[in-house]
């Protein structure tokens, strides 16, 4: 039997220690004086101050009648909090902020609230100011291309109707004008765009809509093994690209007029910018700057 890796052993122990130190809000359905749903023996439980819950546990005679409205009420309460936060944010962005706040911007208010359809998303503290691209405000474009070994592949078109506001017309341009928060801000990623055009963008492989798959280690014509890279250039800058060698789907489309090459190239080969870059200056659907 193989001896356990010391790091794995340490990791198991550390995670257990941190988990044991977790403060679990009290569950009133549990016997008095215990943490809610705590599966450890009483001696191992942290002596934490109970935190009130949005969704009470369902207990005793009332639980059948109460469960439905409690869940609904919890979702509604969270939605209300998010909506209030959204109003505050819009006020600040309009320069009509409550209190003195930061400098006002001229951006129009977002037409969408940041709540999900269930209203159950709780925005973390400090996340109420939307990051660009902002839903129903920004309209960005990025030039992109898929480069394999030594040549660019034909530009891809959408695999489905664009429901969220990120698409391509087969011209090597990514159009980003989010209709909702699912592709706005930090969710405007290469992964979101890849989904839209039916491109499989894994950590180590690239799968085209027709099923052709390029994997790390596959040989280029010269025999050198290819590896997945994503090269990005800042808008209108001729500087060297930033190269992402892992988590390519998480690469953000973080500004208007970005240039992106998704590449399967041998080690040491710097992917070139895509041929669609000049198209950025010939677009007919460029909205006037809204921000």
């Amino acid at each position: 039997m193989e001896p356990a890796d010391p790091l794995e052993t340490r990791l198991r122990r550390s995670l257990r220690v941190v988990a044991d130190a977790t403060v679990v809000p009290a569950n009133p359905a549990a016997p008095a004086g215990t943490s809610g749903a705590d599966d450890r023996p009483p001696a191992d439980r942290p002596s934490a101050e109970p935190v009130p819950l949005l969704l009470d546990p369902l207990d005793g005679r009332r639980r059948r009648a109460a469960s439905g409205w409690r869940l609904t009420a919890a979702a509604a309460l969270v939605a209300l909090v998010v909506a209030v936060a959204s109003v505050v944010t819009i006020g600040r962005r309009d320069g009509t902020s409550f209190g003195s706040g930061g400098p006002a911007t001229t951006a129009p208010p977002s037409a969408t609230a940041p709540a999900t359809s269930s209203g159950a998303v709780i925005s973390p503290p400090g996340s109420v100011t939307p990051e660009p691209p902002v839903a129903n405000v920004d309209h960005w474009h990025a030039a992109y291309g898929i480069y394999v070994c030594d040549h660019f592949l034909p530009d891809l078109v959408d695999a489905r109707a664009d429901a969220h506001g990120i698409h391509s017309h087969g011209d090597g341009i990514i159009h980003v004008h989010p209709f909702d928060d699912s592709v706005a801000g930090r969710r405007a990623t290469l992964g979101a765009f890849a989904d839209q055009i039916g491109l499989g963008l894994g950590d180590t492989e690239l799968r085209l809509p027709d099923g052709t798959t390029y994997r790390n280690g596959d040989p280029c014509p010269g025999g050198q093994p290819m590896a997945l890279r994503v090269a990005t250039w800042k808008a209108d800058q001729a500087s060297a690209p930033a190269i992402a060698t892992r988590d390519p789907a998480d690469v953000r489309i973080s500004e208007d007029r970005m240039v992106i090459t998704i590449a399967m190239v041998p080690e040491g080969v710097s992917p070139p910018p895509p041929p669609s870059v000049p198209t950025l200056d010939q677009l007919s659907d460029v909205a006037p700057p809204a921000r």
Partner: protein
Amino acid sequence: MLGTEAVDDGLAELYRDRYGPMVRLAHLITGSNAVAPDLVQDAFVKVSARLGEIQQPAAYLRVVVVNEGRAWIRRQEVERRHQPRPVEPIELPPDVDELWSAMAVLPERQRVALVLRFYEDLGFDEIARTLDCPVGTAKSLVHRGLASLREVLHDGTR
């Protein structure tokens, strides 16, 4: 399809059994004890809507908690990728504290894979199902997560 009463009973039981473990899991995934109960609360709300349809509520709940945690991390990510996420101060032994801080700088998927593997003790196929990825990717995430952890602990920086 379960009746309303059975669904309510199932939800109550699920809540009693899994609330605490899921808060701890959410804490490990996000690094934030403060946000963990809220994420788990959201997860229960989502699960409750489908409880009559799903075969393995506990496994489904874990998937939802993991997804909620990952979404929260992505929302929290600061301008530069791989910059350490803030770690809430909790009193830990020094060696645990060092490793817990190192976990905070890992890419989100590696961190989650390590938590599922070494805290939840899941096999690679179950990790793959939870993360909705191929088994090979799950193995790779764990392998790379350990390698990243070694690197961070060795460097003492990043």
